[in-house]
């Protein structure tokens, strides 16, 4: 990203920040192309690609047939040629038809060709629940991607990060799965664009604390912040660590935090069993065992298919469930 004079900070939603990142990236590099279902004329079902076709034309931002596997395969082919495709999977679960292309090719092409063929594709995926969506509109599938070597997997929780990390993802020579927490699309912050936050691969302490670390990302970051605020009223200081990037993972930041607090609670919305939190808990146990005052626990989505909207509130990890886990951690030993 070139050095520019920032516009003054102004209120910006996460959706608009992503839109601005796409627009700025496309303006700077004509190899960047955006495509997917409904991203062109409609501007995306969440309006995240609004105005891009009008500004850059149909050869830079276009609508595809309804076919996720071919959207991904076409992106791969275009990346091999020399373009930088930024494709959208309209909702998390709609990426499933594209899994073969993602896991068999997007993740493996660099390795398969010993570095001769990088595939600098960004796959934008709105994920997570809490919006009252019917089945298949609220999944969180980040574990499958994190489990597949060759992919970078990132998820912003703040408006600034949404802009900065998307710009960085587009510039990256690696394929990046960019998970957008859809419940936070309309969250607002005062941001000066172009924003530059920490690099992909670094975590951020959103709230320093001393008694326990809440390790979280994406949709659960505001949940953890709310829990920490609540806990502070009772004199309990919780540290909230926003991972930002699942792959590459900032082991050092996690270790620093847990060494300080002695207690780790992982909070994520996706299914707990076999989820990314399991990896985090294992790593913390392996690396920080002697600093731990309590077992590492996870507050995660229930091990059930994401429920209908009327049941959602029982499923989603909320501040109360997090605080219950904090209580157990504090009273351990």
């Amino acid at each position, binding site marked *: 990203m070139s050095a520019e004079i920032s516009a003054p900070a102004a209120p910006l939603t996460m959706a608009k920040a992503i839109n601005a990142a796409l627009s700025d990236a496309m303006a700077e590099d004509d190899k960047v*192309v955006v495509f997917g279902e409904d991203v062109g004329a409609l501007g995306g079902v969440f309006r995240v690609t609004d105005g891009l076709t009008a500004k850059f034309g149909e050869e830079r931002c276009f609508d595809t047939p309804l076919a996720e596997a*071919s959207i991904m395969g076409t992106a791969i082919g275009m990346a091999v*040629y020399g373009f930088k495709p930024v494709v959208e999977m309209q909702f998390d679960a709609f990426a499933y038809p594209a899994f073969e292309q993602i896991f068999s090719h997007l993740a493996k092409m660099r390795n398969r060709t010993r570095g001769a063929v990088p595939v600098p594709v960004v796959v934008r995926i709105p994920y997570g629940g809490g919006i009252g969506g019917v089945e298949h509109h609220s999944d969180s599938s980040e574990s499958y991607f994190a489990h597949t070597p060759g992919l970078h997997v990132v998820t912003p929780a703040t408006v600034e990060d949404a802009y900065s990390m998307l710009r960085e993802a587009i510039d990256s020579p690696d394929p990046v799965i960019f998970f957008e927490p859809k419940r936070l699309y309309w969250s607002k912050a005062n941001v000066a664009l172009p924003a530059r936050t920490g690099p992909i691969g670094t975590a951020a302490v959103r709230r320093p604390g001393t008694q326990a670390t809440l390790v979280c990302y994406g949709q659960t970051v505001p949940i953890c912040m709310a829990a920490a605020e609540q806990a502070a009223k009772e004199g309990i200081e919780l540290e909230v660590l926003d991972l930002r990037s699942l792959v590459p993972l900032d*082991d050092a930041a996690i270790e620093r935090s847990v060494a300080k607090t002695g207690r780790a609670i992982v909070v994520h919305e996706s299914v707990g069993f076999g989820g990314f939190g399991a990896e985090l808990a294992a790593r913390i146990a392996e690396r920080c065992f002697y600093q731990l005052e309590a077992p590492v626990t996870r507050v995660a989505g229930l091990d059930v298919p994401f429920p209908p909207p009327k049941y959602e509130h029982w499923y989603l990890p909320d501040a109360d469930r997090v605080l219950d886990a904090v209580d157990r951690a504090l009273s351990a030993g």
Partner: protein
Amino acid sequence: MTLLDLSARDREGATAIAVRPAWDSEPLRYLDEHGAPVEGGARPRPESLAPAALLRGYRALRFARAFDTEATNLVMQGRLAVYPSCRGQEACEVAAVHALTEQDWLLPTYRDSAALVLRGIPAVDALTLLRGTWHCGYDPKQWRTMPQCTPLATQGPHAVGLGLAAKLAGDDSVALCFFGDGSTSEGDFHEACNSAAVYQAPVVFLVQNNQYAISVPLHKQTRATSLADKAVGYGMPGVRVDGNDLIALTAVLGEAVDRARAGGGPTLIEAVTYRLQAHTNADDAARYRQSAEVEYWRHRDPIDRLARYLTAIGALDATVEAEIDEECEQYCERMRAQFAEEPTYHPDEMFEHVYAEPTTQLLAQREMVRAEYGSGEGEGAAQ
């Protein structure tokens, strides 16, 4: 007919499959199986009928056969981990490669190793995947030839991406994508054809219908009487051609490549051919097909057919054949020499190209494996 009626029986059982294919219509051809031009057949460009051009094609067929035979020998000697032969399908391999220029892209299946070497890729590099040395032994960007891999039809959307990219970049290169008949059942085949037509991408889809997907015959793969008919559904031209007739293939492929290059969009070509060998060296074809059927197709060998025609027009004689024999033998000797050298392996290579830069976690794992491996050459310690 019930499904049972259509079931293949093994060589001991009753004959349910007719030896002679029961097609509704014959595919487009220039030469019949005896090497004589047919009435009302394919219309090649005059320059491709010049003896010199035909002889070039014939040499390439013989070369492809020699390569395939040598690779078959290598796998029997244990120098390749697996080899899916294209014996009998050489006309498709040659015609496809000769229809393209160096700026065009070729997307092979795992059976198209002959096409790789025809493209110019050294045999030892082309066969890296099948040898088990690495997943791809050549630089796809250098050769404009994508890697072979096992997943079926997934290369279809890649072809569309390459074609669309070329179109958007304003260059007139074309992507030629191979498929087998089996992979026309895969979703990616459908999506690739559909999106290529929607985008009017400069792609040529070449389906080598060799009648079998491992053991599954075409009539269990589709009820369509012609794979080329599927093109209608996608809104692009479809042509069903005799895949053992190099002249007809040259005509059809030339037209399709020209159309794509001129901005006329994609074409679906079904080349009707036959897989003379089993699926790979690990397969036993006698379990699902009859030797009479194989013999039927041996008499329609693409090389013999063209040889008869070339001999009839005076372009081929024993002297030329002997020259070609010698060239092929020299190539195979060089190939054997290349394969006699055992490559070296190092576990570090597993970590080098996972990402542009290895993660700290990967570096730690690399150290762990290095410690297990020690400092010697050759294969690492058993896990």
